[in-house]
């Protein structure tokens, strides 16, 4: 894959910058140049998302593309961000059994995949479950 294709998405994939329509106030991620509600009346400005959200749906992928072979099985989800937009992202550091619809997540910066041994390494966001302290660490020392 050519580098520019991934390089130009860096602001969005690395920093979760979407767009907000100044007319209807709807927030979009990934960013859009035209608001589907207002079209030419809308004015889209960059908008930084907090990265907090909830699991809207999820699946554990057992048969995946070759680029993701070493990650199988991985959990793929649709996350509803607190500002409104939904995004597709993997849920990292978990197995499928512990995820439930409605679980709180935060978006984190991760390696998404790599192209062979000498290819490009692609980075982007994944979601991580926000674990309640007492649940994951009964001693409270964590």
């Amino acid at each position, binding site marked *: 894959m050519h580098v520019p294709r991934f390089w130009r*998405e860096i602001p969005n994939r690395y920093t979760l910058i979407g767009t907000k329509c100044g007319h209807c106030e709807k927030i979009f991620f*990934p960013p859009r140049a035209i608001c589907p509600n207002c079209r030419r009346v809308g004015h889209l400005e960059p908008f930084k998302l907090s990265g907090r959200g909830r699991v*809207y*749906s*999820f*699946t*554990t*992928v*057992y*048969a*995946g*593309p*070759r680029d*993701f072979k070493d*990650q199988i099985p*991985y959990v*793929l*989800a*649709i996350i509803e961000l607190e500002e409104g*937009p*939904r*995004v*597709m*992202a*993997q849920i990292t550091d978990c197995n*499928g059994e512990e995820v439930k*619809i409605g679980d709180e997540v935060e978006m984190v910066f991760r390696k*998404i*995949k790599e192209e062979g041994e000498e290819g490009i390494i*692609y980075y*982007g966001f994944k979601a991580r479950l926000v674990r309640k302290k007492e649940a994951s660490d009964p001693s409270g020392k964590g």
Partner: protein
Amino acid sequence: MRRVAIVGVGQTRFGELWDTSFRQMIIEAGTRALEDAGISGEEIDAIYVGNMSAGQFIQQEHIASLIADYSGLAPVPCTRVEAACASGGLALREAMIAVASGIHDVVVAAGIEKMTDVITEAGQEALATVSDQEWEAFMGATFPSLFALMARRHMYEFGTTEEQMALVAVKNHHNACLNAYAQHHVELTVERVLQSPVVSSPLKMLECASITDGAACLVLVPLEEARKYTDTPVEIAGSGQASDTIALADRESLVSLKATREAAKRAYRMARIEPKQVDLAEVHDSTTISEIIAVEDLGFCEKGEGGKITEEGITAIDGSLPINPGGGLEGRGHPIGATGIAQAVEIVLQLRGEAGKRQVKKAEVGLTHNVGGSGGTAVVHIFRRR
């Protein structure tokens, strides 16, 4: 606008056709359709062919020219139409519009995909390109995973069960056993479906349409001319097409396809019928949940009841609303670009009363429903016996 009828149908067997090339497949289906219509090649004014990705599957683009050439029909205009898995349905719609407009009189609507010339992983990766490359495939989305995300949400919102979904696969494989052209001739049980390997939870292997080779063709003429060709013309009474966001996450809902609802609304309006007047339908069951969501969105039951009406047997061949009597994508096989045309072939055979062991008793109004990707495109057609 002229009314349009189908006077000829033809298809290849669907399956892993190792010994048959892309060129042979389209000629076989086309020849059968022409023989069925009783016409010769010279009478054809134009061809529309649905094909998702000959470029990825056989490293051949410009297949419209190839098809006109190898059918011996050049200089007849031939146009390739692409909308992922809805390519065939869209080719049918373009062919219908061409006849309806008066530009062309005799038009072939074709669909073809040759998927088994690449290794399985490459085929699956080609399929994943129907999703949003930058925001879905990049994150590791596979074709089944998109439907798995819909299934999980449908289960959450309506209590749909894995057993109900499995029943869709059982029904469609049973129907396929009665269809000589279908890929899979094996009866399933709910247990066997549930025990098949999980592809993307909660969907199992036997709930997802497989990789298939196949081609199908239809011959369209103005309705007023149709009796010159056949005693059993089938009118295309309604046609609707709609788009939606390419990425699943951007949709209003994961439990309903807006493109299906919009396309259906337009097709019903054009045919001047209500959903309850439909006698049978071929819907886009790329996975089991796809059929459950489709029967809801097409207005055959309330939202959330798709699993229940499957369980009650309403959608079986002998039920009150047979769905996918030809085996559906799961049983007949899903050669992407050919599927939308094969659905119409099945409805025409049913409305003519030529469907043999899988003949639906009351078959006067039939519907086809073809979806591109996870719902970015939907095409709905309504057919009536004349």
